[in-house]
């Protein structure tokens, strides 16, 4: 017999077993869920990453205080990457005898590599996207520089020794996010005009940027090469540096998507385990018969192993195909919705799919078969109860190992996988305990009221098993639902439609009163925060400098001055995580942001010394804050007690919301307060909003995949108990039970089962959601009583209806047929 015929024959034999068919379905559906989640996540995350790189102008950005080695560019080009350079330094710009300090941005001809560059030229008053920077001899200025120097396209400016034509007003630059808080207005010039200005010398305080773009794999290879070459002054810019808001949104989305995929896997795992359990029981007799016919354990193992692998292969093929199809459809709708081209998914989800099928079979199915192989055939043939103490433990360990491996496969995060595994085990333990207590309670009640006993579940073990499965399933889904709701709510809260879209800086102390009057007059809400620049010079009387730290971020923080502020009111985007916020009469102390405290290695109670324009102030850290950087409010690393900055040189900063139809307010404001710098962040806001929309959609689509996995478990669990139900219904019918009686029993049992699973699941879900929300997503804890009611009712209705519908066909079959079937 050739190999193919053997496989075909074996498959035909196996296919006859209903459990094998169900197992294939369960396996294929889990592979579908995992691959579809993987494909969708891949595409959406890729799209989100793409948008993020647009915000920084390239896939990879190298920044340096010294001109970097041009060899970096040559190497990148030789690898097929696109490159661009940007050089930035402050300089005076002169126009019609007016002077203004500006940020000069020198760009190469192919800048930007990613993201949109928009300008408004003389001929038209509408912004349009352009593919490259200004031509040689031309310069672009931003609206602020245009306003302060009365510059219009067609005018000329002096920049050092060079004279340049103003060609256009630049309205949007890709790396605006990065530069949102550079207070000077911007002038953009071509790199070939730089030398003629004579401005850039070795002593200039300039920042050099190399931008790279290309295929993700090439970028990855190049990044690792580049990292090995980096000098002290050079570093690779990450998203976090410039756009904590975007980074946070991205991290939250990834965290959620990973979690949703993990839960899908756990749910699918439960379905496989259930089916395997029934399959093991079904196979027991044939294994015993084969043994009596002389088959050795090794032969049996080989035989079963082969058919298991056949199952894995078939399930993988079907699952990957279906998963790809689903992501294709989903991708189509997502693309319509978000109006963005979605990149194609990678091959990894397909490999994860195969791995999932393999691990699931190995972890959940094989132990049951092993157990049958190792059982003495007479025990099986004579239907003797066998105690599988050791084998039972192996089965549990193997299933847990399988779950852990699957979770790791999804998240690549050992710690997160462990947390979820432990939570799942605790949940299973809790559900088992609840089920046992509840059964006892039901039996106690039933004993007291006659004619109710027959309503009790006929099979205690099955009731407990189903309660654990439904409980765990509901728990996963409810948990995910509440997380999803929280997450999306949190995002829309963090960027309400009237979130500030302009920052106003440089408001002088003497302008404070008039400015507040102006704001009230124009009905703008504006909280003014004092801002003083100071350098951190000592921690606990030990002087500190950049050289004391190895961490790049720490070095950078100490190289520049901090923006210190002082306020009595803690804004909503700040949360105290340690210590106490200033009370009404506090006149000393500092509140610091937690990441910066961690980076620089100080904490509550430490004394920090700042040099503020030659004056030294020393204060103790009295609180540590967590800051939501995506709130678009002015936020500070260091806030001093109210009044501490009173006598020190300072300016004020605020953020305001100006609706698009009131844009005329800006020129009025500039007229009245010429010294105030207005920073328009609506473009960044729009970009951040776009990303959040994508992330929300991703969350919704992945969530629906998890729901499907949940329904699969429900189906598998119901199918797994159908055989034993069949026999019970037959016996009851032969004893004279009417259909209505049986129906009442079934609906009662399933509803009680579902209601209880939902109740326990909701309670547990609220507890875990709060823990994880705080741990993973940095959200506030919340109690949701509606979830408990929803969990119980939805569980009772869903399981009651699905359970009854699943066994309803059995009610119609004549009892003699049921008996014949169950005896088979």
């Amino acid at each position, binding site marked *: 017999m050739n190999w193919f015929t053997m496989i075909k024959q074996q498959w035909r034999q196996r296919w006859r077993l209903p459990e094998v068919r169900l197992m294939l379905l369960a396996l294929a559906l889990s592979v579908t869920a995992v691959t579809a989640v993987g494909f969708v996540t891949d595409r959406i995350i890729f799209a989100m990453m793409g948008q993020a790189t647009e915000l920084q102008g390239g896939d990879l950005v190298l920044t340096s205080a010294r001109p970097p080695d041009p060899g970096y560019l040559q190497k990148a080009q030789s690898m097929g990457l696109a490159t661009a350079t940007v050089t930035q330094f402050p300089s005076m710009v002169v126009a019609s005898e007016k002077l203004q300090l500006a940020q000069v941005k020198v760009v190469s001809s192919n800048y930007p590599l990613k993201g949109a560059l928009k300008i408004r030229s003389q001929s038209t008053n509408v912004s349009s996207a352009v593919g490259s920077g200004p031509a040689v001899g031309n310069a672009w200025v931003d609206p602020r520089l245009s306003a302060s120097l009365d510059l219009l396209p067609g005018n000329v400016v002096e920049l050092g020794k060079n004279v340049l034509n103003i060609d256009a007003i630049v309205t949007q630059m890709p790396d605006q996010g990065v530069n949102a808080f550079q207070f000077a207005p911007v002038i953009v010039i071509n790199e070939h005009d730089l030398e003629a200005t004579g401005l850039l010398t070795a002593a200039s305080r300039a920042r050099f940027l190399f931008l790279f773009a290309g295929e993700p794999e090439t970028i990855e290879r190049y990044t690792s090469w580049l990292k090995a070459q980096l000098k002290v002054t050079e570093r690779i810019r990450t998203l976090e540096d410039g756009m904590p808001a975007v980074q946070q949104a991205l991290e939250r989305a990834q965290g959620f998507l990973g979690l949703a995929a993990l839960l899908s896997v756990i749910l699918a795992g439960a379905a496989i385990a259930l089916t395997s359990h029934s399959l093991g029981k079904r196979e027991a007799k044939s294994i015993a018969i084969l043994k009596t016919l002389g088959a050795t354990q090794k032969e049996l193992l080989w035989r079963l192993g082969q058919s298991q692998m056949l199952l894995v292969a078939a399930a993988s093929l079907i699952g990957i195909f279906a998963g790809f199809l689903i992501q294709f459809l989903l991708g189509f709708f997502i693309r319509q919705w978000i109006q963005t081209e979605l990149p194609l998914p990678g091959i990894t989800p397909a490999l994860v799919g195969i791995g999932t099928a393999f691990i699931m079979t190995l972890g959940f199915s094989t132990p049951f078969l092993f157990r049958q192989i190792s059982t003495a055939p007479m025990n099986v043939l004579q*239907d003797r*109860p066998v105690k599988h103490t050791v084998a039972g433990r192996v089965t549990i360990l193997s299933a847990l190992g399988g779950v852990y491996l699957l979770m790791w496969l999804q998240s690549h995060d050992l710690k997160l996988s462990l947390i979820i595994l432990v939570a799942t085990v605790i949940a299973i333990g809790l559900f088992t305990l609840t089920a046992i207590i509840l059964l006892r309670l039901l039996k106690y009640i039933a004993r007291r009221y*006659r*004619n109710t*006993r*027959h309503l009790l579940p*006929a*099979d*205690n*073990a*099955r009731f407990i098993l189903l309660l654990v499965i439904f409980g765990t399933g509901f728990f996963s889904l409810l948990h995910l639902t509440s997380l999803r709701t929280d997450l999306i709510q949190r995002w829309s809260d963090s960027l309400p439609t009237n979130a500030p879209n302009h920052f106003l800086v440089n408001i002088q102390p003497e302008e404070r009163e008039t400015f507040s009057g102006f704001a009230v007059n124009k009905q703008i809400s504006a909280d003014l925060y004092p801002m003083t620049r100071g350098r951190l010079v000592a921690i606990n009387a030990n002087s500190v400098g950049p050289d004391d730290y190895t961490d790049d971020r720490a070095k950078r923080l100490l190289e520049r001055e901090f923006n210190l502020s002082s306020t009595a009111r803690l804004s909503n985007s700040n949360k105290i995580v340690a210590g106490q916020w200033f009370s009404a009469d506090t006149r000393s102390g500092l509140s610091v942001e937690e990441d910066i405290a961690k980076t620089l290695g100080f904490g509550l109670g430490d004394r920090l010394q700042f040099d503020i324009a030659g004056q030294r102030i020393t204060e103790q850290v009295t609180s540590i804050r967590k800051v939501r950087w995506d709130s678009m409010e002015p936020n500070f690393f260091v806030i001093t007690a109210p009044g501490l900055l009173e006598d020190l040189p300072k300016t004020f900063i605020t953020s305001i919301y100006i609706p698009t139809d009131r844009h005329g307010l800006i020129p009025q404001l500039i007229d009245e307060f010429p010294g105030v710098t207005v920073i328009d962040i609506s473009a960044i806001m729009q970009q951040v909003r776009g990303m959040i929309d994508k992330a929300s959609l991703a969350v919704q689509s992945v969530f629906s995949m998890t729901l499907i996995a949940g329904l699969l478990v429900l189906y598998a669990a119901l199918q797994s108990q159908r055989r*034993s139900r069949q*026999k*019970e219904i*037959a*016996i*009851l*019918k*032969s*004893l*004279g*039970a*009417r*259909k*209505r*009686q049986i129906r009442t029993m079934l609906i009662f049992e399933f509803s009680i089962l579902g209601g209880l699973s939902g109740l326990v699941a909701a309670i547990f879900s609220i507890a875990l959601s709060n823990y994880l929300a705080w741990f993973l997503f940095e959200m506030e804890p919340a109690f949701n009583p509606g979830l408990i009611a929803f969990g119980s009712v939805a569980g009772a209705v869903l399981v009651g209806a699905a359970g009854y519908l699943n066994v309803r066909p059995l009610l119609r079959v*004549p*009892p*003699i*047929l049921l*008996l014949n079937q169950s*005896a088979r």
Partner: protein
Amino acid sequence: MNDNNPSPVIVTTTLGKSVITSDQQSLTILSEINMNIQAGESVAIVGASGSGKSTLLGLLAGLDSATSGSVELLGHKLEPLDEDARAQLRLGRVGFVYQAFNLMENLNALENVMLPLELDRTVTEIDQRALDALCEVGLEHRLNHKPGQLSGGEQQRVALARAFVTQPEILFADEPTGNLDAATGREIIERLFSLQQQYRTTLVMVTHDDQLAARCDRQLHLAEGRFLEQIAGQQ
């Protein structure tokens, strides 16, 4: 309960059963079965494997529907009755003992015996009656054991207790000793006949054991779906 005047509790007229096979052919399992069984009588239906014994038993008990002819059980024609009405007819009046015991796996002995009583809302003292029934079969020390913890003989004794607990008018037994060793089989048969006598229950038993069949008042021989007497008559 039976009255003292014997009257037929089961009557069949030209009863037949055929099924459609997987290749769409009609296969006749039973045909032209005419019989009368009187109250309190014990009847053995004997015949080789595949002769249609169990199918006949199922039809007589209303667990299956005939394709031709009719069955009258306890004075009711079964054909016009739907499944529920047939179940209602059986409730408390018909008991079963099967070769494969057919106990509820996860109910203990006492709960298994209580089951038919619980299905009938008019019955009282369920616990006591079930307990008495188990005592009668000598299982008072195994009340809380589940079928998996009982021997084959013990399981069949639980099945007997379950069958007799409602003091049924008719007991259908399908190869009741088929899964038991000879000694245990004998013990079960002794108990079965003793209970049958005690409650004057009509017994319809399917068996291929001639000795067991000989203990019944009457034997009906089935071959190829028909009674041998009928075959002989036709020849």
